[in-house]
């Protein structure tokens, strides 16, 4: 084994730069994989840790009608602390610039949010606006119309003083507020605005915070059941409901990111397989010399297997390092899309996992081209043109390697896509695409050979003939490029085709739409 190690090192001389270039294929895949998985982990944890902040309360009851007397009576009996919110939409006017914009007007009564805080500039505006005829206005609007704190904003029939810039609302993303910029006003001025009239699209919300650790899920169910008659469209929501819904979206996002990572890695693996194939073709003569001097097939195979393993390991380690760098840069890039703050610091375990997966996948995809080393005849040492056949034992081995590659691809897809049925479909789809590409390459070669017109110029005839001449790369290139295109197209298709659950959820919550 020591000799094999020594030979693997010696044999790589003169090829190390090229081998390092090959590692970039797997490095990019692992960088994408580790950063996407790191982001996914961080988002799951962030949602779990900031569950109550997603709602700003323990319980939210909403209705499209003002709450009935029975509802109010029931709310009074609940105890705890209550806040009210009325949401509607209206054009607002910034008199200084004359700018108008459709905004989401939220009239706040009480101390909502109970969890998390309104981020404002100046910070004290978050509390002070409730006491006067003041408004908190989304920062985007102020920037757009060059308005400042202290300027006026007209909402309905009332002109408010802008008390502060609204920079953040618990559980809401910057992207969501870009689409429907919020303006917060005190509840006591809502009636004067005359925005709530017959036909207005209004949502009434009662928000509760409970000191005790009561079961808010049961309470929400009870409220919906008790008020079914009089407040038929009532909907009670808890922080846990919101967390679960967001969790489902996070899981879907996790699967999508996992698919992205998987495809990036698979592209890297296809790159490694192509690179190793080309590398081994150049090495067959050296292998034949070693075989003629007495090296066994396994000794020769191990030399190149070690090189492929080292290539996979170095590429994966570099990829994990790059992935950590990307992950550190992500918060700044995607902060606007995240509800709340998400700690996306790199994890050692994710990096280790990436290195393990990258090395294994590089070895798995390199194994098939590496088997050419085992089949290489020592006769090549005296007959350069000799083409080794495939020994029957190696045919079985090739079949096993192909099977292992399929199983490995499935396991990786299972790990990253989350669901076994998705993983199976994806693996089968990839195998079918691979087979079709190989058949296309075969068809192209035989068609060009048969039907290439003799009237073509010398250059054209030679160019076309190179597609089927010995040592041509037609199959390799068509499979590599075709599979790459197939994988990227799959990712785009998945990206533009959210499932029914997604669509429903995206309609319902702004946070998830932003995600």
């Amino acid at each position, binding site marked *: 084994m020591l000799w094999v190690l020594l030979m693997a090192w010696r044999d790589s001389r003169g090829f190390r730069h090229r081998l390092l270039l090959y590692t970039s294929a797997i490095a990019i895949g692992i960088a994408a994989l580790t950063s996407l998985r790191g982001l996914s982990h961080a988002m799951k944890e962030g949602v779990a840790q900031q569950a109550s902040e997603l709602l700003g309360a323990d319980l939210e009851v909403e209705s499209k009608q003002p709450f009935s007397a029975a509802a109010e009576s029931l709310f009074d009996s609940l105890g705890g602390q209550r806040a009210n919110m009325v949401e509607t939409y209206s054009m607002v006017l910034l008199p200084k610039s004359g700018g108008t914009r459709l905004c989401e007007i939220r009239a706040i009564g009480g101390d909502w949010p109970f969890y998390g805080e309104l981020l404002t500039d100046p910070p004290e505006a978050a509390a002070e606006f409730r006491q006067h005829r003041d408004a908190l206005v989304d920062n985007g609007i102020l920037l757009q119309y060059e308005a400042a704190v202290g300027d006026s904003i007209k909402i309905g029939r009332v002109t408010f003083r802008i008390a502060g810039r609204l920079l953040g609302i618990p559980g809401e993303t910057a992207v969501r507020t870009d689409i429907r910029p919020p303006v917060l006003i005190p509840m006591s001025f809502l009636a004067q605005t005359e925005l709530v009239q017959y036909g207005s699209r209004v949502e009434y919300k009662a928000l509760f915070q409970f000191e005790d650790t009561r079961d808010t899920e049961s309470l929400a169910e009870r409220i919906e059941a008790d008020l079914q008659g009089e407040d038929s469209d009532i909907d009670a929501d808890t922080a846990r409901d919101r967390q679960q819904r967001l969790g489902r979206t996070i899981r879907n996002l996790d699967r999508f990111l996992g698919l992205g990572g998987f495809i990036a890695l698979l592209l890297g693996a296809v790159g490694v397989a192509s690179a190793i194939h080309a590398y081994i073709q150049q090495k067959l003569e050296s292998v034949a010399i070693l075989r003629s001097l007495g*090296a066994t097939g396994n000794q020769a195979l191990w030399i190149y297997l070690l090189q492929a393993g080292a290539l996979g390991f170095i590429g994966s380690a570099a990829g994990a390092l790059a992935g950590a760098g990307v992950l550190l840069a992500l918060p700044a890039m995607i902060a606007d899309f995240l509800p709340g703050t998400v700690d996306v610091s790199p994890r050692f375990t994710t990096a280790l996992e990436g290195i393990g997966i990258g090395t294994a996948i590089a070895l798995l995809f390199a194994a098939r081209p590496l088997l050419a080393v085992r089949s290489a005849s020592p006769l090549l040492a005296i007959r350069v043109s000799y083409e080794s056949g495939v020994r029957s034992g190696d045919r079985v081995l090739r079949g096993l390697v192909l099977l292992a590659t399929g199983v490995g691809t499935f396991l990786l897809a299972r790990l990253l896509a989350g669901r076994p049925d998705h993983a199976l479909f994806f693996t089968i789809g990839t195998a079918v695409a691979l087979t079709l590409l190989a058949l296309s390459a075969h068809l192209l070669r035989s068609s060009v050979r048969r039907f290439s017109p003799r009237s073509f110029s010398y250059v054209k005839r030679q160019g076309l003939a190179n597609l089927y001449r010995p040592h041509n790369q037609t199959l390799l290139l068509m499979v590599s490029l075709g599979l790459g295109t197939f994988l990227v197209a799959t990712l785009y298709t998945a990206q533009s085709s959210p499932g029914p659950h997604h669509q429903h959820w995206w309609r319902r919550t702004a946070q998830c739409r932003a995600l």
Partner: protein
Amino acid sequence: MTYVLDVRDLTHKYRSGERDLTVLADVTFRVASGTSCAIVGPSGSGKTTLLGLCAGLDRASSGTVILNGQPLEGLDEDERALLRRESVGFVFQNFQLIPTLSAVENVSVPLELRGESGARDRAAELLGRVGLGDRLDHYPVQLSGGEQQRVGLARAFIHGPTILFADEPTGNLDADTGGSVEDLLFDLNRETGTTLVLVTHDVELAGRCSRMIRLRAGIVVEDCQQVDGASR
């Protein structure tokens, strides 16, 4: 008299399109230990094919090759490789040094494959013997053709093989360089007592062997002892 190589009724065919092409037909000969034997013949007569079959680099369609007492047809690829490791040396027409290994590393390979210690020292010593003591760490690409073939000779003899197969050892060299390589080959052969089987077009080179087998179209047409061969 013991025979290191015993070839009996050796026939080898290739499939060429729809028909079989017979490259060797019923070739039979034996090579005694410590002797030198040249296989000569025109291009396409089957010389290199015969060499490959005798060294176990390929399998014959029929017939028997007994190398160092071992019938090759019963051995698989790896067993034949192990037999070559123990008892066979090669000198190739186009030198066949491993390009990524230095001269001393190329020469060390046969000993390293046998797991012997001190391979580098012995390789350096033998390279000194062939006049390349100052070129140990040079790579093949940094050596001339004659120097590469001398490295090839050192590699062929380093593990003390029972039999040495040489395929046109001077075929890629000019007359002067070829002459000195020939001298070195026969000197080392005499010193080590190795059996030499040599394939060549070169009648003069063949004349230095104690025996000459002439092939034509895959058939042995002449097998003669040369009284002034190896002793010359």
